[in-house]
């Protein structure tokens, strides 16, 4: 049975909330894939905990997007009934878990950004977004600390862990540029002091990265080439598989209450 995708009226504010919600959900989903399979029980707990924070953020942002849109959509319709071309998350967060180093480097790149981003967003004129930012900032600060500690341990651990951590950095680096990009719709929100300009955070983000990476005896790549596309629905091949799993129940049994 075919289940139609919902249509979303992507006004700048709806699109803004959807993008951040999708980031949080997709990354949370990826982390939840570790549950039961992590290298140690303590990390099983930690990765699940971070996943729960992110899924919580996603729910608030989806609910807000639905409310701003003012139609029949809700958090579940937005999460479960949009296809890959309608998803607006960063390419970084949909990248597969890979090994533990790849998961932690992905988390490190994202959390170092999210921590700065949500802290700055606490000053948003939009009171709902400011409230979501205040909660997310606290969570992101912890996620960043956790990831940073692991980058240092892996980089300065054994030869193998160093090699794996460096390979993960080199592999994921090209997906970081997208975090700082802004389109016209979002620029209007920035002018209205509803959103902040992520481009202004890049310097501090790089400082955080450099400090941790150098303590870890690792290196950041010199290349400037960055992949783009997630924000407008041009994703990697990985996202479709993630969504087919995430959405399988809602697609198989449409319109039911769970």
């Amino acid at each position, binding site marked *: 049975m075919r289940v139609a995708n919902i249509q979303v009226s992507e006004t700048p504010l709806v699109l803004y909330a959807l993008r951040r919600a999708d980031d949080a959900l997709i990354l949370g989903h990826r982390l939840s894939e570790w*549950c039961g399979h992590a290298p140690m*029980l303590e990390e099983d707990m930690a990765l699940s*905990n971070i996943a729960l924070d992110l899924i919580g953020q996603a*729910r608030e942002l989806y609910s807000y997007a639905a409310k701003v849109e003012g139609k029949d959509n809700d958090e579940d319709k937005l999460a479960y009934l949009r296809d890959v071309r309608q998803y607006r998350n960063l390419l970084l967060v949909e990248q597969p878990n890979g090994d533990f180093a790849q998961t932690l480097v992905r988390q490190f790149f994202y959390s170092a950004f999210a921590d700065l981003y949500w802290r700055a967003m606490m000053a948003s004129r939009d009171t709902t977004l400011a409230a979501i930012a205040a909660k997310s900032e606290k969570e992101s600060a912890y996620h960043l600390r956790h990831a940073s500690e692991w980058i240092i341990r892996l980089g300065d*651990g054994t030869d193998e862990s160093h090699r794996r951590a460096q390979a993960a950095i080199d592999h994921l680096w090209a997906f970081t540029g997208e975090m700082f990009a802004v389109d016209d719709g979002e620029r209007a929100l920035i002018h209205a002091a509803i959103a902040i300009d992520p481009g202004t955070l890049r310097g501090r983000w790089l400082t955080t990265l450099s400090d941790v990476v150098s303590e870890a005896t690792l290196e950041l790549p010199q290349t400037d080439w960055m992949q783009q596309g997630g924000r407008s629905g041009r994703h990697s091949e990985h996202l479709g598989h993630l969504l087919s799993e995430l959405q399988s129940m809602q697609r198989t049994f449409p319109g039911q209450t*769970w």
Partner: protein
Amino acid sequence: MYTQALNTAETDDRGLEDAAKAAQFQARIDAEERIEPNDWTPAAYRKTLTRQISQHAHSEIVGMLPEGNWITRAPTLRRKAALLAKVQDECGHGLYLYAAAETLGTSREALVDAMLAGKAKYSSIFNYPTLTWADIGTIGWLVDGAAIMNQIPLCRCSYGPYARAMIRVCKEESFHQRQGYEIMLTLCRGSDEQKAMAQDALNRWWWPVLMMFGPPDATSQHSDTSTKWKIKRFSNDELRQKFVDATVPQAQYLGLTVPDPGMIQDADGHWRYSEIDWTEFKQVLAGNGPCNRDRLAARRKAHDEGAWVREAAAAYAAKRVQRQTAQAAE
């Protein structure tokens, strides 16, 4: 580990497990006193408890797998978050229980190795597959329900660390059980398809859940000493009957049929169930359940693939100590 300092004196005393000490120990048990890690105990008491607590811990950890199977497919965001939190709780129980087991003198690493080598057991129930979303509701309702029946009396177990762990574990399990029942209630109030899904799950899980309480009293090996030491306060059959009596009305409320056509309610109100297929139970314990190999393979894979991470953490910790020592010497 931090338990290494415990009981070093006692180890030397083991040859002197004389009748006087044993009598004193039993008198403390009879007086409902709690036994703590540094107290003298018969070696067999430690052995029994190490086996029981570590099996319990292994069950929590292996038990993450069947439910974890649905985290990425949970039907709503609320269910997804609740299931992830629940499986995370199970992991916490495992950690907590390994810590309790360590107070008896065996390290977590050694206990886990025994499980991965297939030498230590975990609950037979986790060797069954979760095929539909209704299995997640059923596990919460029945598997956690059965676990609570077993574990509530363990809150009064003579061994202090285990008893205290059980108090906390039972609180969380009873939350999980309500959550599972609520999933079932939602399904049973839903479409015909959802009701059929719920009934199918009950049909598949009912008998394996009854087997969770262990072999019938007449054939149980460990009960006698465990009862004397107040580790176990009710027999397998007593707990199983309690569970059935509590569960049948819950199934009726859901509008589901317990898959036991021979079940009758006796004059005292007890629901008398038919003969359990103990051959199936023995097969599952022997490693021939539908998922035994998959479960062990998944745990081994996580352990093996995580080895380089644990080595890195240990290497980094050692480097840090070395640097701090070098700094202090300057």
